[in-house]
């Protein structure tokens, strides 16, 4: 059963085989952790939030509906956590360190590329939380507009308009920062 689908593992958890959760943790912890990193821009908070997310999967296992996408349900839980997080803490826009957020330095990445990535994350940090979330989900988590629409309970066309608008906004901030640096 090594190739069991996420949905099947989740059903197994629901049936009381709670250890099946470990399989879902190893499949999803990196994605969830990076979702939190790019949303909250804080490494420690992201570690805590990732942990809490999987605990909630266990606690609320009976609210998972059979036949629905596990991934969407998981990110529903994760999103709510980000919302709660921002009720408590406001991001200090310039205080985050890009090293906490960006992957560890790869040797084959050139200076210029690295600078661009850092500038991009700075620009991301200046977006309003809900707008940043749209880009985190669509660009970094690679979710389709349909899936984000389901997650946010909005129409696909509305999501697309918002994502495009946010990309424009991001582009303006990005080049403002880049010109400022040069």
């Amino acid at each position, binding site marked *: 059963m090594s190739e069991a689908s996420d949905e*099947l593992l989740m059903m197994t958890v629901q*049936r*009381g085989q709670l250890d099946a959760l470990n399989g879902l943790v190893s499949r999803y912890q990196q994605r969830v*952790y990076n979702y939190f990193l790019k949303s909250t821009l804080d490494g420690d908070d992201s570690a805590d939030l990732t942990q809490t997310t999987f605990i909630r999967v266990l606690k609320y296992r009976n609210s998972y509906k059979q036949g629905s996408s596990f991934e969407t349900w998981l990110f529903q839980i994760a999103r709510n956590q980000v919302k709660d997080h921002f009720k408590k803490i406001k991001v200090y826009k310039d205080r985050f360190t890009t090293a906490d957020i960006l*992957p560890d330095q790869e040797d084959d990445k050139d200076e210029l*590329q690295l600078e661009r990535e850092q500038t*991009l994350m700075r620009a991301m940090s200046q977006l309003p939380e809900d707008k940043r979330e749209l880009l985190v989900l669509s660009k970094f988590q690679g979710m389709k507009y349909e899936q984000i629409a389901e997650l946010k309970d909005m129409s696909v066309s509305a999501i697309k308009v918002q994502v495009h608008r946010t*990309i424009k906004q991001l582009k303006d901030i990005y080049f403002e920062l880049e010109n400022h640096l040069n």
Partner: protein
Amino acid sequence: MRHITEEEIIEFLETGALSSELKEHLADCESCQKLQHEFEEVISTMDSIGEKKVPDMVQLDIAQAVAKEISKERSRGGFQIWQIAAAVALLIVGFYAGKLTTDDRSDEIIALQSQVDVLKEVSMMNTLQPSSASERLQVVNMIEAEKPAYSEKLLNSLFTTLNTDESPNVRYAAAQALVRFMDQQDVAMRMAESLEQQTDPLIQISLISILMEAQEKHAIKPLKKLLEQDSINTDVKKQAKIALDIIA
């Protein structure tokens, strides 16, 4: 001829869609090209940023927190129906004691009802909440955890549960509890028969896996039948195909 809008450029970069007129314009217009390159830089940078690996310490913390929560959940489940659990545990302990000392006594205890029957009686006496499925589940889980020795009665009650219990959770737990008895005569065959009756995908898969491991020839017919069904769950189908390859 007008310039391309930002919206059109984003759409173009995302989907490749752009009217031939605007494509021609783009080929000649420097300001539109500049805009295109700016968006390209932002979008390609977003695409190139990878994921950070979860630090080992963080992974360890997550694993520990999850393990702790799992054991907490388990004890919580048991506590809710502690009266019944205690009654059944007593029986199982008695069963063991009998097994270990004299065969006469063990026969006596086996002659008592099966654990599942006992549960029904206990729950009737207690007239607690009607949460009988979770109570039955608790008992079957307990049978699996306590690992009582083989007895025809226990086996029969597990099969009855597997084939007839109204709750899929209880049926699933019964399948898991039966794994231990696979080396007993006819158990694998009875499981293959049971596979034909099951409709819940998780139970189907768990039976298929068990039968595959046992290389049970009697499973071939129900497996083939399963694969003929149009409405079959894709996970079940995958597992059934693998099992057929191995057994047949």
